[in-house]
C-alpha cells in the first residue's frame, strides 16, 4: 500500500511539474508579445515626430492601420505559410496546423503552444510593416501602404522566415544559415522591400532641388522621435526573447541548438551600446545615435547566442559607424528619399549582421545542415535581398500604374492631416503656418 501511495504521489508530482513547464512557456511568450507591442508604440512616436506637423496624425494612423490589418492577415495566411514552406515552395504536411479553420487555431485544451507562438510571430510580422512605414511617410496613400504592409507582413517576410528562421528551413539545412535574431527574414526583407517601394514612390515634394541638391526636411518633434526609438529598443527585448524556443525546461535557438537567455542579455545590450556609440561618433546626431541602437541590435542579432560580448559590441560599433554613411549615399547619390533611414538601418544593417556572423561565428555546428560559414551567410543574404526587393518593387509598381500609390500633390503640399484625417494633432496651434499647411516652401 505504501509503495502504491508513493507511486501515486510521484505521478501527481510529475504531472504538476509538466503543467508548470507548460504554463511557464505560455507565460514567457505572453509577456514577450506584450513587450513587442512597445516596438509599435515606439514606431508610432518615432514616425509622428519625424513627420512635419501637417502630417503627424496621418503618419501615426498609418502605423495603427498596419498593426490592425496585420493581425487578421497573419491569422488567415501568415502562420500557415511559415509551417508550409520550410523546404522551398513545396507545401509541408505540418502546414495543416496553421490552417485558419483548423483545430489548432483557436481555444484548445490540448494545444498550449499554437496561440502563443502565433501571437509572437504576428508581432514580428507587424514589425516588418512598421519598418517600412517610416520610410514612406508624408506622400504614400494610406490604402497603398495598407496593401503593401499586408503583402510584406502577411506573406513575404514569413516566407523568408520559413526558409531561414525555422528548424527545417532550407537555408539552414542546405547552407548552414545562422540568424538567431531574425536579421535576415525580418530586417533585411523589410528593408529591401521598402527600397523597392521607395523607387516607385519617389521623393517628397521639395526634397531635391532642380540641380539634384538635397533639402533637409525636419520632423516637427525630435524629442518624441528619440523617446520612440528608445521604446523600440525596449520592445526588442520582447522581440529577441520571442526568438528563443522555451519549452518550460530548456532554452533553444530557432535552429534547436542550446542557448541561454543570459547569452541574449549579454550581447543584446552590448550590441545596443556599440551601435549607439558608433553612430554618435560619425554623426553627433541624437536621431542617428538612437537609430544606431537599432543598428546595434540588428548587427549582432544573427550571433547573439555565440558572440563574446565585446565582439558583439565591436560588430555593432562598426555597423553604427557605417550605416549612417550608407543612408547618406542612398539619399545623395541615388536620390532615394527614405525619411527615417529604414533601408539602411534595417536592410543594410541586416546584411552586415548576417555577413558578420559568417566571419565571426564560422564553424559553429548546426543540428540540421552544415556548419556556419561565410559562403552560406553570403548566399542567404542574396536570397533575402531578392525575396524582399522583388515583391516590394513589383507590387508598388502595379499600384503606381493604377494611380493608387501616391497621394495627390495638392494634398501632399497642404498636409495629409488636413485633407484626410478628421481631427487635428495640435488644435491650439492652428495659427502657426507649419501646423496649418500654409508652409513657406514645399520642404516645410
Amino acid at each position, binding site marked *: 500500500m505504501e509503495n502504491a501511495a508513493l507511486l501515486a504521489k510521484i505521478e501527481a508530482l510529475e504531472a504538476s511539474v509538466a503543467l508548470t513547464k507548460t504554463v511557464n512557456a505560455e507565460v514567457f511568450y505572453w509577456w514577450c508579445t506584450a513587450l513587442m507591442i512597445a516596438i509599435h508604440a515606439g514606431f508610432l512616436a518615432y514616425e509622428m515626430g519625424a513627420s512635419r506637423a501637417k502630417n503627424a496624425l496621418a503618419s501615426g494612423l498609418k502605423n495603427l492601420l498596419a498593426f490592425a490589418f496585420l493581425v487578421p492577415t497573419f491569422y488567415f495566411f501568415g502562420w500557415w505559410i511559415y509551417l508550409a514552406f520550410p523546404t522551398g515552395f513545396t507545401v509541408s504536411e505540418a502546414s495543416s496546423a496553421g490552417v485558419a*479553420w483548423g483545430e489548432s487555431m483557436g481555444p484548445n485544451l490540448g494545444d498550449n503552444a499554437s496561440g502563443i507562438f502565433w501571437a509572437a510571430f504576428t508581432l514580428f510580422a507587424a514589425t516588418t510593416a512598421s519598418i517600412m512605414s517610416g520610410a514612406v511617410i508624408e506622400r504614400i*496613400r494610406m490604402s497603398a501602404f495598407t496593401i503593401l504592409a499586408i503583402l510584406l507582413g502577411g506573406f513575404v517576410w514569413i516566407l523568408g522566415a520559413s526558409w531561414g528562421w525555422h528548424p527545417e528551413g532550407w537555408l539552414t539545412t542546405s547552407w548552414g544559415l545562422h540568424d538567431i535574431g531574425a536579421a535576415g527574414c525580418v530586417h533585411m526583407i523589410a528593408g529591401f522591400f521598402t527600397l523597392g517601394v521607395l523607387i516607385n514612390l519617389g521623393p517628397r515634394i521639395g526634397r531635391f532641388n532642380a540641380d539634384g541638391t538635397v533639402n533637409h526636411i525636419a520632423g516637427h518633434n525630435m524629442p518624441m522621435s528619440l523617446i520612440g526609438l528608445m521604446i523600440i529598443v525596449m520592445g526588442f527585448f520582447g522581440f529577441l526573447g520571442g526568438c528563443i524556443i522555451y519549452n518550460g525546461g530548456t532554452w533553444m535557438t530557432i535552429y534547436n541548438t542550446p542557448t541561454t537567455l543570459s547569452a541574449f542579455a549579454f550581447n543584446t545590450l552590448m550590441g545596443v551600446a556599440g551601435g549607439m556609440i558608433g553612430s554618435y561618433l560619425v554623426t553627433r546626431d541624437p536621431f542617428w545615435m538612437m537609430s544606431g541602437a537599432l543598428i546595434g541590435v540588428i548587427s549582432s542579432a544573427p550571433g547573439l547566442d555565440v558572440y563574446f560580448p565585446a565582439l558583439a559590441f565591436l560588430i555593432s560599433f562598426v555597423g553604427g559607424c557605417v550605416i549612417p554613411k550608407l543612408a547618406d549615399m542612398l539619399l545623395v547619390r541615388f536620390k532615394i528619399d527614405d525619411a527615417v533611414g529604414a533601408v539602411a538601418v534595417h536592410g543594410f544593417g541586416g546584411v552586415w549582421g548576417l555577413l558578420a556572423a559568417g566571419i565571426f561565428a564560422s564553424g559553429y555546428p548546426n543540428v540540421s545542415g552544415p556548419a556556419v560559414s561565410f559562403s552560406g551567410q553570403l548566399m542567404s543574404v542574396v536570397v533575402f535581398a531578392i525575396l524582399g526587393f522583388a515583391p516590394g518593387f513589383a507590387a508598388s509598381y502595379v499600384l503606381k500604374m493604377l494611380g493608387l500609390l501616391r497621394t*495627390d500633390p*495638392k*494634398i501632399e503640399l497642404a498636409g495629409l492631416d488636413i485633407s484626410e484625417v478628421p481631427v487635428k494633432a495640435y488644435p491650439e496651434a492652428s495659427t502657426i503656418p507649419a501646423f496649418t499647411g500654409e508652409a513657406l516652401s514645399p520642404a516645410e
Partner: protein
Amino acid sequence: MNSAPITTWEGAKAYFTFADQPGVLMVISALALAVCVGTIAAMIRHENACVRKANGA
C-alpha cells in the same frame, strides 16, 4: 444556435465556437476577410473624395 462543439469538459480539446463545423468556420473566416478587403476599398474611396475636394471638384 448551438455553437458548442462539446457536451462535457471531460477530455475536451478544441472547444471554440463551431470547432466541429469546418464549413461554418470557413464562412466566418470569409466574412472576416471581406471586412478587411471592404475597409481597404472604403479607404480608397475616402482618399479619392479628398483628392476631388482638394482640386475643387
